[in-house]
């Protein structure tokens, strides 16, 4: 039996506007949403940002959340976009009755707080509560590619008949944490960013949220859902090169795009538009250009980065840009690469002005720290898939570490120079992973899936207390680049040279369950024969828990 995956609703809130209409108008009129910092209280007035032009109080009022209730801005933005996406489907509450609904949200900083109250999973829970939907929930945290990976997971769960309706995307509000963190990496432009331009100096941060509502086409047709487009291909790969920098040849990006095209059964010339990751940093744009040239060669489609409109909305960028692709398809135009003026041989030449064009197939790129590179193909026609066969898996090499004492044994596997920046939880993750692989007789796994409740809590806490005690500008770049939840998965991929599927789940106590399910799913899909799965939790000063296991096809 074949079926396909339809997009039946979408919602967006970002610096360009608070709904799809406003975002469309800004893009068509070539107006950027980036400007001076206004809502976030920070000393960095010199750094332009793409803020959502609503205060927390206004967001609460719009969502009927009591003014006194403590809700993170990340959750408020998420709820705002999600409510819009649901309304956009025109599905009545009755037609949702009895359906298995799954909400998959991507968040990182929203969960990098020192308190349990703001874990990634709790943001997702808050969003569902505010909007009032009863559903299964999962939270993905692969830094800046989180939201695109949420959409990819939703697509796969529908293919495997694990759920009936998926709401997938991501949300992230600006914070002192990542504004200062990115600043410590010296990759923030002090003017409006210019992706792919010869004079580009870095990125501008932005904020926002966006969600897609997905359904199997057969059911969407039966229910007379309003089908807006189809998801026809995806790729999730790891650059396995550096925690924050991108590889010279853009390997991870190249593999993700190639996988996505292959799955959609499309050739390079079939793609009408690429919404690039294009952050505006010298590194990313050069590396992405190399990857684009490797994929498309002489048949380069129209390319633009819309981050000079929205700012880099980090964890939300994947879904914000997927919705921008959808807006572009529905209104037959290619958004400009705002601010681009000067060509350079090291970069592709993007679209300088909004351009009218019929779009049949678009490719959306989203890359993150840790080399988490993902690509998605959105099409105006179906791409049938066959149902996923079931298969048998077995667990091997299971082992765990709970005592700090044991971490000394890491020396057997890792040189002191390599381990010098590793915090406790990373040392534990490496130790259990190496032991699991050794026991299973595997040198490098096909894929890496990590589960973590709070992520890199110790590093996060150290950053927050530094901001509190020494002021905004004293953040250590090493701590910041190792503060995202996907730090462990990325570092393991780099060490093991694993360019395969790579993802991090942060869904509270259920994180490991989601990770193991995904490993099995990946093996059934034929995308891996063995997967390194780990559960790594820390709660300084006492708790240290690390368990690794190899999931293998029987």
């Amino acid at each position, binding site marked *: 039996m074949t079926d396909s995956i339809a997009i039946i609703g979408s919602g967006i809130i970002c610096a360009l506007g608070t709904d799809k209409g406003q975002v469309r108008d800004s893009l068509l009129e070539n107006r950027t949403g980036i400007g001076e910092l206004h809502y976030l209280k920070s000393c960095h007035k010199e750094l332009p940002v793409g803020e959502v032009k609503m205060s927390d109080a206004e967001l609460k009022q719009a969502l009927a959340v009591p003014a006194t209730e403590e809700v993170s801005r990340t959750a408020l933005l998420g709820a705002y976009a999600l409510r819009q996406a649901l309304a956009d489907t025109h599905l009545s509450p009755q037609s949702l009755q009895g359906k298995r609904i799954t909400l998959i949200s991507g968040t990182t900083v929203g969960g990098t707080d020192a308190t349990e109250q703001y874990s990634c999973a709790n943001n997702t829970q808050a969003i569902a509560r505010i909007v009032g939907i009863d559903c299964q929930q999962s939270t993905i945290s692969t830094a800046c590619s989180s939201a695109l990976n949420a959409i990819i997971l939703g697509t796969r769960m529908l293919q495997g008949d694990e759920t009936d309706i998926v709401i997938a995307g991501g949300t992230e509000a600006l914070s002192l944490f990542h504004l200062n963190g990115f600043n*410590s*990496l*010296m990759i923030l432009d002090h003017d409006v960013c210019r992706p792919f331009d010869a004079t580009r100096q870095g990125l501008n941060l932005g904020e926002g949220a966006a969600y897609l509502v997905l359904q199997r086409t057969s059911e969407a047709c039966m229910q007379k859902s309003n089908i807006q487009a189809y998801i026809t291909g995806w790729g999730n790969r790891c650059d396995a090169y550096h*925690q*924050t*920098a991108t590889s010279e040849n853009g390997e991870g990006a190249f593999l993700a795009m190639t996988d996505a095209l292959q799955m959609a059964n499309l050739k390079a010339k079939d793609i009408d538009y690429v919404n690039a990751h294009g952050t505006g940093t010298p590194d990313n744009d050069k590396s992405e250009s190399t990857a684009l040239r490797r994929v498309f060669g002489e048949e380069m489609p129209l390319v633009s980065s819309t981050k000079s409109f929205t700012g880099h909305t980090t964890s939300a960028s994947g879904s914000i840009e997927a919705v921008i692709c959808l807006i572009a398809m529905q209104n037959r135009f290619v958004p400009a690469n705002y601010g681009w003026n000067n060509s350079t041989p090291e970069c592709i030449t993007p679209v300088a002005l909004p351009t009218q064009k019929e779009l049949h197939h678009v490719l959306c790129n989203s890359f993150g720290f840790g080399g988490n590179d993902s690509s998605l193909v959105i099409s105006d026609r179906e791409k049938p898939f066959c149902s996923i066969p079931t298969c048998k898996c077995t667990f091997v090499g299971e082992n765990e570490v709970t005592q700090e004492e044991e971490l000394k044994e890491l020396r057997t596997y890792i040189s*002191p*120079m390599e381990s*010098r*920046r590793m915090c406790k939880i990373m040392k534990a993750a490496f130790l259990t992973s190496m032991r699991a692989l050794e026991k299973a007789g595997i040198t490098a796994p096909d894929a890496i899936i990590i589960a973590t409740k709070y992520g890199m809590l110790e590093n996060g806490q150290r950053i927050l207390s530094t901001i509190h005690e020494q002021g905004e*500008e*004293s*953040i*250590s*770049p*090493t701590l910041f*680049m190792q503060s995202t939840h996907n730090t462990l998965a990325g570092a393991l991929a780099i060490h093991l040279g694993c360019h395969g599927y790579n993802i991090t789940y942060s869904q509270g106590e259920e994180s490991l369950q989601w990770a193991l399910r995904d490993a099995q799913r990946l093996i059934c899909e034929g995308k891996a024969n063995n997967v390194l799965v780990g559960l790594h939790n820390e709660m300084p000063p006492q708790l240290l828990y690390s368990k690794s296991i190899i999931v293998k096809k029987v």
Partner: protein
Amino acid sequence: MEDLILELKEKIIEVLNLEELTPEDIDPKAPLFGAGGLGLDSIDALELIVLLEKSYGIRLASAAEGKNIFTSVENIAQYVSQNRKK
């Protein structure tokens, strides 16, 4: 200058977590980055930029500027002694 060189070596070991090294292990004239030296990388360079600002009040405008300064401990010491604000 000798005192400053020793102080820098100690700070570098501390900030970059070079636990295995003592100040005597670092040749002040040897390259800090790449092969044939300590083998530091771009993230270490960012940490050194933070170190200059915190300890000596020197603020560099870009990571590229750091490249010319962080060639060796001796070179950093020279730069610090000429530009320090504290």
